[in-house]
């Protein structure tokens, strides 16, 4: 790969805007992510982080804005292209959203069988591989109701990985988890990052994020206020609003970064 190729963004969004009635919940958000980046969205709840992530794969249709994956623009009304695009953009939800009527193995398998149209044996083998990767080899036949929150989230990560995504979008992956279950999910995410997966994640786990992120993106009131390296944003941000938010965070952690 030439130097210029390596620098081209894998995912680029420009001017994403979402309105509900008269309320603008996302205001002209733009960002670009290069291969291997782990960018983290931080900011107060209701700031538009979740809306931004769901607009990127058009689970929420934005009023304005454009999205490019690997330099190709995506038009959401072209259904076939949209479905292909979504295969390449894995999404992890705060509420896991596992398919309740299917075992862990079938949850990971169904995308391979129904969407990628793999043969049964091939799909099973791939699903097993991904579940092993997230450490759930012994739980493959369990149903979501029988799994802990951390296990459910790891299944959902396996399910997304099985589709061979180019990018992963993670919408507060640990916010619904009990504290003692958070670390097992963070470990999987850290491992993914170490293996070069490109990720855009929103989270309140600031300490973890500052360890793994290449960039923090601070969002408030639907706008991207400031972006920069984690340490800069946390301790020496340019904007007042960023400083205000981060000072409260560091207070909470009773530490300085």
């Amino acid at each position, binding site marked *: 790969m030439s130097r210029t190729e390596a620098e081209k963004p894998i995912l680029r969004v420009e001017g994403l805007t979402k309105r509900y009635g008269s309320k603008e919940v996302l205001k002209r958000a733009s960002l670009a992510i290069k291969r291997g980046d782990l960018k983290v969205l931080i900011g107060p709840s209701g700031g538009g982080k979740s809306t931004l992530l769901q607009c990127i*794969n058009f*689970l929420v249709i934005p009023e304005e804005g454009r999205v490019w994956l690997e330099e190709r623009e995506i038009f959401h009304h072209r*259904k076939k292209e949209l*479905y*292909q*695009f*979504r*295969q390449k*953009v*894995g*999404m992890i*939800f705060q*509420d896991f*959203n*596992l*398919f*309740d*009527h299917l075992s862990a193995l079938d949850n990971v398998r*169904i*995308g391979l069988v*129904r*969407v990628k149209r793999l043969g049964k044996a091939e799909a099973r083998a791939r699903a097993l591989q991904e579940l092993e990767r997230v450490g759930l080899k012994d739980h493959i036949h369990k*149903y*979501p*109701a*029988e799994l802990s929150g951390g296990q459910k989230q790891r299944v*959902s990560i396996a*399910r*997304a990985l099985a*589709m061979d995504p180019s990018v992963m979008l993670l919408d507060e992956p640990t916010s619904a988890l009990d504290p003692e279950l958070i670390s097992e999910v963070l470990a999987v995410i850290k491992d993914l990052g170490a293996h070069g997966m490109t990720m855009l994640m929103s989270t309140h786990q600031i300490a973890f994020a500052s360890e793994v992120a290449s960039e923090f993106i601070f969002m408030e009131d639907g706008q991207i206020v400031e972006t920069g390296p984690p340490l800069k944003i946390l301790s020496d941000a340019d904007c007042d609003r960023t400083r205000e938010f981060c000072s409260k965070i560091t207070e909470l952690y009773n530490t300085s970064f």
Partner: protein
Amino acid sequence: MLEGLTIVAGALPYLLGGCVVTISVVLGAMALGLALGIPLAVGQVYGPRWVRAAIGVHVWFFRGVPLLVLLFLFYFGLCAFFDLNLTAFTVAIIVLGLISSAYQSQIFRGGISAIPQGQLKAARALGMSDAKAIRSIILPQALRLSVPAWSNEYSIVLKDSAVAYALGVTDIMARAHFVASRTYQHLPLYLAAGLIFLVLTYIGLKALKILENKVRIVGYSY
């Protein structure tokens, strides 16, 4: 009293023969109701406005006109008008099936609406089209949830099937009436008919209860 019981005992094989007719009508109607009810429900939840309006009209019509009126309308009215050569048995199944489809569509619509939004989101996020997502993720769950309400619909259709006697279908009710009008033993015969229906209801509900337990999603709570 004794004479009544003797008459019933003698007529029992004949009465029970009506079970075959009744059960066939009920199975046919439930199947038609199911085959139509599912697409109607999906259309009502996910369809564009005109589809939802059209389905609304279908549901309103078949829930709003009495069964007896519809049976006569179809059999003596429409069949004659369009010169259709359908038996009373067939018309009974069609009419009961259409009525049941209206009620069943509302049962499945409730089941579909009870599925959390996140299920469809996750399916879409994997790259599934809405049609695939509805078929593989939403309906399997919604139908399982609908079994209790569906067994209620079965008991209603079973009871309604007795009205088909008015078209001349030789079901349990028709046969009980036939014997009663010849022997004047009305009370014992209609009691027997009622009992037979009760037993059929009981058997069907038991079977559906077994089905409900078999397809129950592990750990599901609503």
